[in-house]
Each structure stands twice: as structure tokens, then as C-alpha cells.
């Protein structure tokens, strides 16, 4: 009996028990699509995280005042940070072995006014000329001047041309009014404002934090945001990636736990570790679902063997060998697994895309800042092989049972 005939006979048998076959295929489809969706979403998110951090140089270390501990009494103002990041601290860090540069910065939220419109933006105030050391991948629009100028402001493409707006918010060379509101020591609410010239517009990076930010000169930000020369953070550049840990140790020796130290490498590793944990969990659920499908195949085929005992007897009486019967039932399992995989793969992809679109963070983010599921050929092939392989394994026992049936006993089941 040739393979094509065995496939035809297996199809006939599955068609005869349409509803049961479809339900079993559905079980495999569910497992396969879950695996594909989980795999795609995870791979996509990891790629997204990589993309976000690829903007940052790998030798970058972020230093900030350590988070203040809660007094435990509840209420009241938070205690002051244990360390004040001043130019002295910056110099000390800069002089540590392995440090290439230490770039202090101020951060905060301001409002920008231009052409009668207002936008709230995040400010990142540092020496603009050193932006390439921190984010080597950053690109500027033509005509931009990246200079350390107190009357300049550099804004992102999204601030300059907000999505959905037909008229630009600001263009190169025009002025914008930057306002910062705060409450001073006397309890007075104050608003500082400065008029600055837009000297640069940087292209979208895909990182929503960077893409919603403006870069100011540190002195301008110090005055505007009433920072009193207390930096919010220091970006430390190790001379090379291998020195990152040594520099971290040096800073830790200087200031202990009074500073928070993190590097792009560590952040990415943490994110990867976290996603890895979640993925393992979700993957286990998907595999369990596929195993349920496999048990469905065992049940379906085993029931089929019982129902078709007489047919097996007839086939044996007219000369079918054990291996023919084994292949016939195994083929049914393979067909169930293959159809389940073929249907489950696109369904899983569609499901992954749908879930990704429904996720609140993704829905609100601009297209370039969304995490999209990523389906690699390798992953799809792996899931496909797993689905079909598991189906074949599930079919082994019922097929073996069918092949070993005694023809006289089988024919006796009339």
C-alpha cells in the first residue's frame, strides 16, 4: 500500500467522523496558536527592548541620588536625598580610573508655547555636544545645529510636528517660550520662563521617553527650573564597555548606597531576565494547551480504533499488514497535527497582532514606539515541528493497538 493511498484512506476516516475530527484539530490549533502568539509577542518585545537600548552607548552608566527611604510614619514631605549631586561630585567621579567623562544633567517637565499652542514636554538638560557619546544612534534633521548654547533648545521630531497635526508646532530657527512652574521656599507659586531658539530637531528613536523630550543647556535649565546647581543625575561614560563594572565599583566606593547606579547593560539584562520569566510561564501554559490537544488526539484515535475494530479486521482479512494499519492510524494523527499547525500558525499570528494592538501602552504609543510581535521562520518552524511531532507521538499508542488487533477477534465484533 503506497503512502498516497494511506493518506487518502486516513482522510476518508477523518471525514467520516467530521465533528470529532474538527474538535480534535481545534485543540491542536489552540495550542499551536497560543505557542505562536506567545513566541511572537516575546520575541517582538525583546527586539523592542533591544531597539530602545541600542540608542544608548553600552559604556553608559547612570548615576542618581539614591531613592529616599520612607520614614514609615506615613504622610509628610519625603526626606531629603542623602547626596546632592554637585559639580564637586561630578569632578570626583570624572577623576575615577576608567572614566572617560561625567556629564551632569537636570531633568524636569516644562511647557513649550509656540504659534499659540502649548505642549508639555520632558526636559533633559546637558551639554548638547556630548549627546552622541550617550546616544550614538541619534540623528538630527538637516539644518540642525548641535551646540552648547544657553539660548538654544533642541526638540524631538514629535514635538516639532505632533502626530495628527497639519501645522508644525515649531520649526528650526524659530523661538519657543519655555515655562516652568514651581513653589518656592516661601510657599509662593512661581513661573519661570525663557524664550529659546529651536536650533535642532532630532529624528524619532523609537524610545517614547527620548522622543517626547527637549534638550536644553544645563545653565538655562538650572535657572529655569530653580535647580540651585543640584544635578538630577550624572551620565558617566566608561572608557570602554569592559570597564563599566570597574567604574561602577569606583563610584560605589566613593558614595556607597547614597547613589543609585545603573547601566544600559544592566537594565537590558534585567528586562531580558524579567521577560524570560514571564515567557517561561506563558510558554508552559501554551505547551500544556498543546499537550491537552495531544491527549485529545489519543482519545479521538483510541475511540476510533474501538469503533473501527471490525474495519481493521476486514483490512487484515484482505491482506493488510500490521504496519499498514499502524501507518493508517498514525497518518490520521499526523493529518490532525498538520492541519492544527497550519491553521494555528496564522491564527496565532493574528491573535498576537490583535493582543499587541489591544495592549493599552501600545495602543496609545505612536507607531514607531510600539512593541510589535515578531515571528521568525525558526520559531514558526519549531512550533510547527512541535505540534506535528506531539500529534504523531500521541497517535503512536492507538495506532499500535490497532495494528496488533487479532483479525478473528476484530471480525467477531459485528
Amino acid at each position: 500500500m503506497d503512502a498516497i493511498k494511506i493518506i487518502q484512506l486516513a482522510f476518508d476516516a477523518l471525514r467520516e467522523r467530521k465533528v470529532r475530527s474538527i474538535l480534535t484539530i481545534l485543540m491542536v490549533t489552540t495550542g499551536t496558536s497560543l505557542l505562536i502568539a506567545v513566541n511572537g509577542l516575546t520575541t517582538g518585545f525583546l527586539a523592542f527592548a533591544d531597539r530602545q537600548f541600542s540608542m544608548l552607548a553600552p559604556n553608559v552608566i547612570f548615576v542618581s541620588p539614591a531613592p529616599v527611604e520612607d520614614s514609615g510614619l506615613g504622610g509628610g514631605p519625603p526626606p531629603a536625598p542623602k547626596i546632592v549631586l554637585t559639580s564637586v561630585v561630578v569632578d570626583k567621579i570624572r577623576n575615577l580610573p576608567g572614566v572617560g567623562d561625567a556629564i551632569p544633567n537636570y531633568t524636569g517637565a516644562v511647557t513649550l508655547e509656540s504659534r499659540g499652542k502649548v505642549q508639555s514636554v520632558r526636559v533633559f538638560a546637558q551639554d548638547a555636544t556630548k549627546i552622541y557619546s550617550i546616544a550614538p544612534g541619534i540623528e538630527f534633521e538637516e539644518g540642525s545645529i548641535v551646540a552648547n548654547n544657553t539660548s538654544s533648545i533642541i526638540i524631538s521630531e514629535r514635538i516639532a510636528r505632533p502626530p495628527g497635526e497639519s501645522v508644525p508646532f515649531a520649526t528650526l530657527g524659530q523661538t519657543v517660550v519655555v515655562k516652568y512652574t514651581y513653589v518656592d521656599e516661601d510657599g509662593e507659586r512661581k513661573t519661570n520662563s525663557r524664550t529659546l531658539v529651536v536650533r535642532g530637531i532630532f529624528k524619532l528613536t523609537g524610545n517614547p521617553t527620548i522622543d517626547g523630550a527637549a534638550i536644553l543647556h544645563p545653565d538655562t535649565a538650572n535657572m529655569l527650573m530653580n535647580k540651585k546647581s543640584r544635578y538630577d543625575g550624572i551620565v558617566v561614560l566608561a572608557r570602554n564597555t569592559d570597564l563599566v563594572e570597574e567604574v561602577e565599583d569606583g563610584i560605589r566606593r566613593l558614595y556607597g548606597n547614597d547613589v543609585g547606579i545603573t547601566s544600559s547593560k544592566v537594565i537590558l539584562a534585567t528586562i531580558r531576565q524579567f521577560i524570560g520569566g514571564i515567557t517561561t510561564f506563558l510558554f508552559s501554559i501554551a505547551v500544556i494547551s498543546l499537550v491537552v490537544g495531544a491527549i485529545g488526539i489519543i482519545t479521538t484515535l483510541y475511540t476510533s480504533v474501538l469503533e473501527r475494530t471490525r474495519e481493521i479486521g476486514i483490512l487484515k482479512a484482505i491482506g493488510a499488514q500490521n504496519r499498514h494499519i499502524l501507518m493508517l492510524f498514525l497518518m490520521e494523527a499526523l493529518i490532525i497535527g498538520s492541519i492544527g499547525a497550519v491553521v494555528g500558525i496564522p491564527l496565532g499570528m493574528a491573535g498576537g497582532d490583535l493582543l499587541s494592538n489591544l495592549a493599552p501602552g501600545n495602543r496609545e504609543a505612536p507607531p514607531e514606539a510600539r512593541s510589535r510581535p515578531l515571528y521568525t521562520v525558526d520559531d514558526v518552524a519549531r512550533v510547527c515541528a512541535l505540534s506535528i511531532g506531539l500529534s504523531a507521538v500521541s497517535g503512536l499508542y492507538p495506532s499500535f493497538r490497532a495494528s496488533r488487533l487479532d483479525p478473528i477477534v476484530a471480525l467477531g465484533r459485528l
Partner: protein
Amino acid sequence: MYNHDMDSGLVLRTENLSKVYNGGYVRVAALKSVNISIRKGEFVTIIGPSGSGKSTLLHLLGALDRPTSGKVYVDGIDIYSYGDSELAMIRNRKIGFIFQAFNLINRTTVLRNVEMPAIIAGIPSDVRVAKAMQLLRMLGIEDKANFKPISLSGGQQQRVAIARALINDPAVILADEPTGNLDSKTGLEVIELLSTLCTKYHKTVVMVTHNLEHASMSTRSIYIRDGMIEKEVVYQ
């Protein structure tokens, strides 16, 4: 190897064929040293009361079971000297079965049912379809080729089973009470058909039956009782 049976025209021969069933504490001797010889073109009926061992004999002649002792020769081949796979091939090539309950596969067509032994034998599609259609034509049910067996009458279904038994041109056709599920008129037609297969097409048929009228239409009847041959009757 010299094949004495073939030379002497023997298609089927048993040599001290015995079968004992072990059922826990009980041993049942279903067949006791049975010796029969059947020539090519003979229409032999096996007659006996229930439990006499006639079905056991038919199963052993058809390579469906293994004897406790003794031998079965089909076309001079000692079939039980072979393993299970070879035995399946012997069933496929040398033996055609016809059952009381027709035993057709109802989800597929009449044509596919008839083709099935040829499919198992690996005969090319065009050859086996042509042969199946020729047999259906010979049996007068050519127009039912694409019907499902379940939609046919009992007599027509048994004709499909006969066509299936003939497709691989077997050495012997074994029929187990083929008229048991048919009315007397249709049953008689089937017996006439089997008889014609022997007289006109020189096929060899061995049939188990209870019906003495049907037995009288064969060339020879072997009476079995308590697992032994009681007598043989040759008809003119």
C-alpha cells in the same frame, strides 16, 4: 522446490490440522487432525452443527489463525511456516474472503471496496480500477461503482464482497455462510454465482453453510462434527 500439489491440481490441502483453544482451566479441541484436499475449480461446502469446528477450519484455511498442530498448503505452500507479514501477504494474494455480514467499508464507495485488496497489493491505479470495473460488470453491479455499500440491497452488497474477493485473482475463495443475511431468493442467486465462478471461471470456492439445498449445488460437501470430518458427499 518441486511442488507436488500444483502438479496434482490441489489448491488447498491440510495435513493433520488441529486447533485447541485454551480458555483458562478449559481446553477445547476445536479441530482434531483434519485432512482435506481441494482441487482447482472445485466448489466445496463445509457443513456441520454450531460449534462443530467449521468456522475454525475456514479461519485456518484462510491464514487468519494459526493451528495448534498440522499444516495447511495453499497452492503447495505450507502457509504456517511463514511469519505474520508473509501470512498477511498470502491472505492478500492467494485467498479471497466472503463473509455472512458482507464486511464492506461503508464510508467509501463500492469501487474503492473492491479495489482495496489490490491497493494493499500495490497494484497500479489504472490496472486495479479496470479490473474492479470488469468484476463489477461481470457481477451486474457496474452502475453501483460510485455508490456507498450501505445504499445497496443485501444481494448487491454480497456481490460487491464477491468482487472484492476476486480482485487479486486468488487461488481459493473462502465464504463463511454468505447467504446468512439474505432472503432465500437472493441467497440462491449468490450460490448460483459462486457455482458459476467455479464452472465458468475455474475458481475454487470453499463455503461454510447450514443450508443443505445450497450444499447440494456444490461439487462436494464435507460434514464436520466435534472437530472431525464425519463424512464427505460428492454431488453429480
